[in-house]
């Protein structure tokens, strides 16, 4: 048992730190620090900087142009990136579709789509959830009917994150309505410029536009955009969801968030003293920090297992549940720390509207973030779904 990084890992950490210090644009980092809305251009700029260094597709094998980092290396990057307020890498291409194409896609699909992800030609979004198919994803109804060289797609997807920036969407569609739910689903790549695709914004409760509805009306999709075999889409979707869930522990984000809470609570005044010296508030912060320290090690234990080649299954679910609860607790502390200044509504929706929002503690829109991050326990398989998986695996021997 040894909790310290190896000398190679320490050298890697140093390399990442130096890179972030030198290459992460200051204006972008400041936006991330104060939870401002990043523009498409901000995100593309950061992707391009990472790509120039060969660090954009961190989990991909080298043969596909990836960095082929180990799980420990990815963890080191995540921690340092969160600490430096680097934007997260938009995951839909790199963490989700990429691995699916590498495992199940044809050579032509790999050669065509993977380089375009790296150089930013395509911006991908995910077409999974539907209004009637959330936790029960397999009940999805969006239909694709084969018609010669095309599929004709009709239906509606929802919660499509950053769909307003995307030109491509990977979708789960029903290709066989008679088969058992999971057996009639296919995995389709759809060009969003095709006639019949319509993106409608959903404004979230904190005023942010980050998710969308995507509607399909008689959308023609060439058959070569089918990934793998028809009606085998559920297998690929499950594979993708496992990838989506790893890293959802968000230890790096939690650590950065806790640091911010302490900074705010040091600046905030309570009865003539810094709030951080108040025993009740300090106790709340300490409790979260104690949990987070254990969680960081839980995270590393799971990462080590993954690095040794064991697929994270159950543990990914555990990390997601615990990680989301901790991050939400930290958001709650941040909104408490600012006191009455939690109430102003900082919205990027109206140009210039934020100029008058008072922020004497330099905290950013912490209450908005508190509400926005309620999503952490809902998306990517809600915490109830994750608990169901944990119970099923541990008490009946299989998911």
């Amino acid at each position, binding site marked *: 048992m040894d909790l310290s990084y190896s000398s190679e890992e320490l050298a890697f950490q140093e390399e990442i730190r130096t890179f972030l210090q030198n290459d992460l644009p200051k204006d972008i980092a400041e936006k991330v620090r104060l939870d401002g809305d990043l523009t498409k251009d901000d995100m593309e700029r950061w992707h391009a900087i990472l790509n120039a260094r060969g660090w954009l597709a961190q989990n991909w094998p080298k043969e596909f142009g990836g960095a082929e980092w180990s799980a420990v290396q990815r963890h080191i990057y995540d921690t340092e990136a969160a600490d430096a307020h680097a934007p997260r890498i938009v995951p839909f291409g790199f963490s989700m579709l990429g691995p699916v194409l590498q495992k199940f896609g044809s050579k032509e699909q790999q050669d065509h789509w993977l380089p375009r992800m790296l150089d930013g030609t395509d911006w991908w979004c995910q077409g999974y*959830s539907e209004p*009637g198919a*959330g*936790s*029960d994803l397999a*009940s999805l109804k969006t239909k694709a009917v084969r018609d010669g060289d095309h599929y004709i797609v009709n239906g509606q997807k*929802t*919660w499509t994150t950053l769909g307003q920036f995307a030109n491509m969407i990977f979708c789960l569609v029903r290709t066989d309505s008679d088969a058992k739910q999971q057996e009639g689903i296919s995995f389709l790549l759809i060009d969003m410029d095709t006639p019949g695709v319509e993106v409608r914004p*959903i*404004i*979230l*409760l*904190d*005023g942010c536009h980050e998710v969308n509805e995507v509607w399909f009306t008689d959308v023609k999709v060439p058959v070569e955009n089918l990934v793998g075999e028809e009606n085998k889409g559920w297998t690929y979707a499950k594979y993708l969801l496992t990838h989506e869930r790893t890293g959802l522990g968000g230890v790096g984000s939690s650590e950065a968030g806790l640091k911010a809470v302490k900074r705010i609570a040091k600046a*905030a*005044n*309570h*009865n*003539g003293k810094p*709030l951080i010296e*108040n025993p*009740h*508030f300090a106790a*709340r912060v300490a409790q979260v920090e104690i949990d987070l320290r254990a969680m960081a090690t839980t995270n590393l234990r799971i990462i080590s297992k993954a690095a040794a080649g064991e697929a994270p299954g159950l543990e990914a679910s555990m990390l997601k549940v615990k990680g989301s609860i901790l991050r*939400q607790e930290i958001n*709650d502390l941040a*909104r*408490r720390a600012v*006191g*009455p*200044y*939690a*109430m*102003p*509504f900082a*919205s990027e929706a109206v140009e210039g*509207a934020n100029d*008058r*929002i*008072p922020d*004497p503690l330099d905290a950013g829109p912490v*209450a*908005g973030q*508190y*509400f*926005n991050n*309620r*999503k952490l*326990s*809902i*998306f990517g398989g*809600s*915490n*109830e779904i994750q*608990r*169901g998986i944990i119970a099923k695996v541990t008490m009946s021997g299989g998911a």
Partner: protein
Amino acid sequence: MDFNLTEERQMLQDTLRRYLREQYGTERRNEILASDTGFSSDIWAELAELGVLGALFTEDQGGFGGAGFDIAVVFEELGRAGVVEPVLDSALVGGRLLAAAGKADMVEQVIGGAIHLAVAHGEPDSRYDLDHVNTTATDNKLTGRKAVVMNAEAADHLIISAKDGDTIALYLVDKGAQGLDIQGYPLLAGGRAAEVTLDNTPGAPLDLTLTDFEAANRLAIIAQCAEALGAMETATALTKDYLMTRKQFGRPIGTFQALAHRMSDLLIEMEQARSAVINAAGYADDKDADLHLSASKNLIGRIGRLVAEEAIQMHGGIAMTQEYELAHIAKRIVMADHRFGDTDYHLERFIALSAA
């Protein structure tokens, strides 16, 4: 012992509930939320006409209520409908301060809905402390900064605290007074507030002490607890309906025990919350009023957070959308904890008062 409302209060509740159900639906509220002023003058006039504002004042003050339970009844209904009009700050706290200062004419205008008030007490680093005032008054000229002042832009008059020597005193400052600067902004849970700066701004001293201010603050705590309770009722009702109608895996999600038990827990806690509001209203004039009020505000803060978070979680994504009623209601509930002392503030105060 009688836990029923008096006939008058029952009528007030019925009237207000019916009015808001008919006039303050999600669509109307979303229009108001998106408006520049952050509230509707029409709704304000109608609330005055219905006697809702008058119910916040005693007969001596020209109203027809004014007790803890009158205030609780009104604000529970306002909370239930997610009303963003500044009844709490403009009419209740502002109006009752003027009543205590003997400004009968102005109180009459408040009750009639003719004027708006704002109360500017908190400062950028005062947090929830009532006795932390750095704004100064010299020869009735005020200088300083007031933080997150509700309804400041719409107010015809502001009631502003300032230190004259070592004494905290309250002053009446008119809209447009010299050296008065109001920087307004919208609030996350609806309505508007402002940062108010005063630079040698003339104010008329009000015949009030910090004790009067504390009395008004007690009423504000009752109102805020009741408003949160009303909003929590709506959140639990929406969640219950959703659990019974939303189907996943071929059945209503409320039939899954994992969710059914959590809904049951919410309903249990809601009974606690209701009792806490009754305690706040019922002990408003007790010698231990502050202890009771802190207990209630702390409990409402804790249960409010639980209800808001669980309601969102059990709904799933739909509750995250701005258009859905619960989103607004959840924000009202959680933001109520940022007014007149939060959960931690009142826990500490409860400890201090219990030890005394």
